[in-house]
């Protein structure tokens, strides 16, 4: 009803193929190795050969041209498999720069020339840098690593300085959506990528907890039979559902002037849900989910990291709240409608 039939079919095929690819390729060993901050080039090659980084780039520019919602659902899928690679960054870079290269890319926001905590900053071929004056595309040859670090999911977050690069015009819709603030514009894009990843990781944590509750027996019955467990997991399912729904809502606004507000709302709501779902996932799994041996932490540590990247939920809440208060109570209702009413476009911009 909201997408034309062919698009739905293509999207379903791409999603199905990606699901199989990620399920087979991302083994426990791969995730454990990634925890050491290692960039898995072989895995990147597979993801890149499947065309995933080009999902959001239009066909005319050499991309796959999925409907934005479907493209961001691929990032949700990546989160569901804890893909330890900068797929979201690269997908956004391709779509925003209109280039169809398949080398890994980074996104950086900087107020002072220092590029803080760039995902896989020492491994990416190029960084899209947002500064007060505009955007720059900086190739690896013009980036210097200042210090290497990792987030609490073990993924590299590297501080860089940039010496050159070529300026890149923001797409008009995005610039207008961000009130001509280049840093806000890129932060919102990154925020939605993280929100989509969180939505996927939440789905996985919920599925793991439901499976665990069905099989783990205590007091002579499966945990799933205890009402306290049922209600905790129902609450987690609600949170996870809200996150998926709001991420879709923001993704549908890609290319439109309400994008930044919707991305802000998505990051805020998904971040709120992430903390709750991670906590419930652990409570249900009990001690065994708190160990390195169990897989749960691969997902919950990502949830806890991603909710703070490209603006935490509280930071976005503050940004949203400021705008709402400035506009006053009389504007609140229309703002809510504008932020959540879906308008499918006839053609991709």
């Amino acid at each position, binding site marked *: 009803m909201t997408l034309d039939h062919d698009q739905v079919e293509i999207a379903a095929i791409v999603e199905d193929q990606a699901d199989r690819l990620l399920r087979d390729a991302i083994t426990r060993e791969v995730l454990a190795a990634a925890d050491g901050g290692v960039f898995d080039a072989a895995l990147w090659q597979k993801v890149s050969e499947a065309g995933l980084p080009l999902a959001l780039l239009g066909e005319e520019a050499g991309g796959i041209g999925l409907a934005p919602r479907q493209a961001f659902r691929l990032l949700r899928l990546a989160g569901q498999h804890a893909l330890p690679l900068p797929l979201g960054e690269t997908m956004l870079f391709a779509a925003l720069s209109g280039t169809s290269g398949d080398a890994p890319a980074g996104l950086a926001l900087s107020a002072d020339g220092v590029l803080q905590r760039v995902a896989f900053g020492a491994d990416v071929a190029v960084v899209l840098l947002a500064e007060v004056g505009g955007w720059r595309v900086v190739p690896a040859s013009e980036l210097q690593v200042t210090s290497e670090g990792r987030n609490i999911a073990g993924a590299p977050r590297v501080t860089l300085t940039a010496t050159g690069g070529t300026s890149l015009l923001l797409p008009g819709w995005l610039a207008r959506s961000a009130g001509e603030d280049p840093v806000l514009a890129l932060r919102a894009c990154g925020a939605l990528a993280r929100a989509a990843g969180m939505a996927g990781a939440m789905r996985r944590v919920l599925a793991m907890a439901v499976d665990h509750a069905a099989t783990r027996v205590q007091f002579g019955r499966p945990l799933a039979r205890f009402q306290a467990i049922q209600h905790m997991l129902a609450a987690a399912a609600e949170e996870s559902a809200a996150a998926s729904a709001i991420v879709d809502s923001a993704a549908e606004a890609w290319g439109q002037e309400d994008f930044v507000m919707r991305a802000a709302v998505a990051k*805020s709501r998904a971040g709120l849900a992430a903390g709750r779902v991670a906590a419930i996932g652990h409570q249900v799994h009990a001690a065994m989910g708190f160990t390195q041996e169990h897989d749960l932490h691969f997902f919950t540590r990502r949830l806890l990291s991603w909710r703070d990247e490209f603006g935490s939920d509280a930071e976005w809440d503050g940004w949203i709240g400021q705008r709402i208060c400035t506009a006053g109570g009389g504007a609140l209702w229309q703002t809510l409608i504008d932020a959540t009413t879906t308008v499918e476009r006839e053609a991709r911009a």
Partner: protein
Amino acid sequence: MLGFDFDGVRFPPAAEEARTRIRAFLEAEHAAGRIVPHRGTWSTFDAGFTRRLGEAGFIGVTWPKAYGGQEASSLVRFVITEEMLAAGAPCAAHWVADRQSGPQILKHGTERAKQVILPAICRGECTFGIGMSEPGSGSDLASVRTRATRIDDGWRIDGQKIWTTNAHNVTYLIVLARTGEAGPSRHEGLTQFIVKVDSPGIEVRGIQDMAGNHEFNEVFFDGCFVPDDMMLGEEGSGWDLVTGELAFERSGPDRFLSDFQLFVALVDKVGPTPGRMSAVEIGRMFSELSALRRMSTSIAGMLDEGAQPLVEAAIVKDLGTSFEQALPETARRLVAEEADRETGEVYGEALAETMLRAPCFSLRGGTREILRGMIARGIGLR
């Protein structure tokens, strides 16, 4: 089990037209002083407002033209209802009829019931209440004991209902009664009847709630006659009918916009230059509300396509009522002002009304515990 999807729906041009029309209607009502924004909008009963709303063509819009409707999409109805809630309009007189009783009669009623009742609902002249709960039957609905016994040309109803909202104001109640054995599933032998409240053999006694409002009632049936053609569906189909209307009852914007006017008053109270804490809390509530509206519109789209998204509806109701209950709590942390129903000050009054109603949000229409049980079943736990 990986979770739920709430696909987006495209609002048809007719829905946006309806938004313009209902806004104009509400503004005119407001300007003429016929309505003032109420807290607890859909629980404020105002028969005059409902009649004017019906005359203006805003009730039963999705129903066939033959029965007074306009054959509009559910999204048109969605827009009309959400605009009324956001404006704080007093909607209780038509809420139940428009939301679930009318659709139920349209789907399962006899031809006479449809012809007599539906056009009158559309005109805003005919109002409904739901007779499900009983003294011994709250969340455990399968245990109802009110009995319908077959007699010549119809049924006689004996028993008692409780918590029947607006029974003292409405034209009809839809009464769930036992007509046979419960069976091993406990869900057999129940039937729904459309009962005229001014029938002989019915007595209504009011119950004041903690806010001092009279919405609830006890209803006593003593040999109350219901003609055959006021039975809904087949004899014994009551359980399926009740379950079928839940997706309508639970997924709508009334589950997260009841106290929207408090949110508006809070934003104005905080003012255009909020401190960080106020901005963060208000932004967070806005995000929660956004997710709820997205999910609720998505369900309207599912209902339009004939689906029965019961678990999704339960998710919206539980998240929605949790949000509504948290709103006054958050407001208290941001504004140092006491709740007060008598000063006439907008914020303090909105806070007071909401706090005094909030406990019932997660009780009426399925308690939080029942909803979470349904969701647990939906994700494969039961």
